[in-house]
């Protein structure tokens, strides 16, 4: 049955894809070759669409791929399959963290994890900059918004709205 197979395949991807949504993409390319549920061209479209719709790319791609394969129910099943393994693992982890939060060794580990996590966030920004800020207009806009974000502390939606309008006006 197609739904069961969709669920199983996306559950497997959800279990092995460590490092976030973009990591799921090579696995989806495999699915395309293995089952022909969607073509590689369609997968490319799915990724482009996912970037301009709300939500994380990994979840969007799963919903879309599931929809292509098994309609609305397929979309829901694929998404649940992808999210389930992480959910179960994290329930365990969260419980563990709350329990051992005051342990001295755990505190030392957290002392080092915090700056490392910040380095990862900053690096993610750098990677996206390299990939997507390929012309001077977007580079300049990004720099202006960055400076602005330190002066007037607004919520992310403010910068997203400004940048979308700027993108249309200046034809980026």
């Amino acid at each position: 049955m197609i739904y069961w197979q969709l669920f199983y395949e996306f559950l497997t991807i959800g279990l092995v894809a460590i490092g976030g949504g973009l990591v799921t993409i090579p696995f989806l390319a495999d699915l395309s070759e293995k089952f022909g549920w969607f073509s590689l061209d369609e997968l490319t479209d799915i990724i482009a669409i996912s970037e301009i719709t709300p939500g994380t790319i990994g979840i969007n791609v799963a919903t879309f791929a599931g929809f292509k394969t098994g309609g609305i129910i397929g979309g829901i099943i694929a998404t649940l399959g992808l999210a389930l393994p992480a959910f179960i693992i994290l329930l365990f982890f969260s419980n563990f963290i709350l329990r051992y939060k005051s342990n001295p060794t755990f505190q030392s580990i957290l002392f080092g994890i915090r700056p490392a996590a910040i380095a990862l966030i900053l690096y993610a920004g750098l990677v996206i900059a390299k990939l997507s800020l390929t012309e001077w207009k977007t580079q300049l806009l990004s720099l202006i918004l960055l400076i602005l974000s330190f002066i007037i502390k607004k919520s992310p939606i403010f910068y997203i709205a400004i940048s979308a309008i700027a993108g249309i006006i200046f034809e980026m």
Partner: protein
Amino acid sequence: MPSLAEIFAVFFKIGMFTFGGGGVMIAWIQDELVRKKKWLKDEDFLYFYAIAQCTPGIIAINVATMVGYTLRKKAGAIVSTIAVILPSIMVILLIASLLPDITTNVTIMHAFNGIRASVVAIITNVAVNMLINNVKDWRGRSIFALAFLLLIIFAISPVTTVIFGCAAGISAQKIPVGKKEKI
């Protein structure tokens, strides 16, 4: 302690207004839950983020699950995870049939290219503010600088970066500092 309905509302809003991928969602979660609602501290948020890197699945969703658990245990985790995923499922299913029109629409693509510029600014702002507010002594700053250099030069994986952070944290605590500080 926030109610399940409040948790649902906040995460649904975050899921709805995250354009540009998980990095922006991370910025949203920090802005809404740490800065505005104060349900969470930056330090909690950061180790959730580190753990989310090393566990399977989508990073931002993983952070949402852990935040939900911290607020209202298992029920909180279920509510936050579903609420953050729900908007994207609904929108994707809705536009699935409109696909060709969207990718060929020039205005939408221009808007999207603009949004990409803000994504970089939003993520960088979050990282710099967290560094200023949460990593105040030279040992922490050195760990940050080293991790960032390793990422740029050797493109080490997120899991390796977090393991490096753990090891550096344990070693750093053995270095005596002038005054005893609170972590």
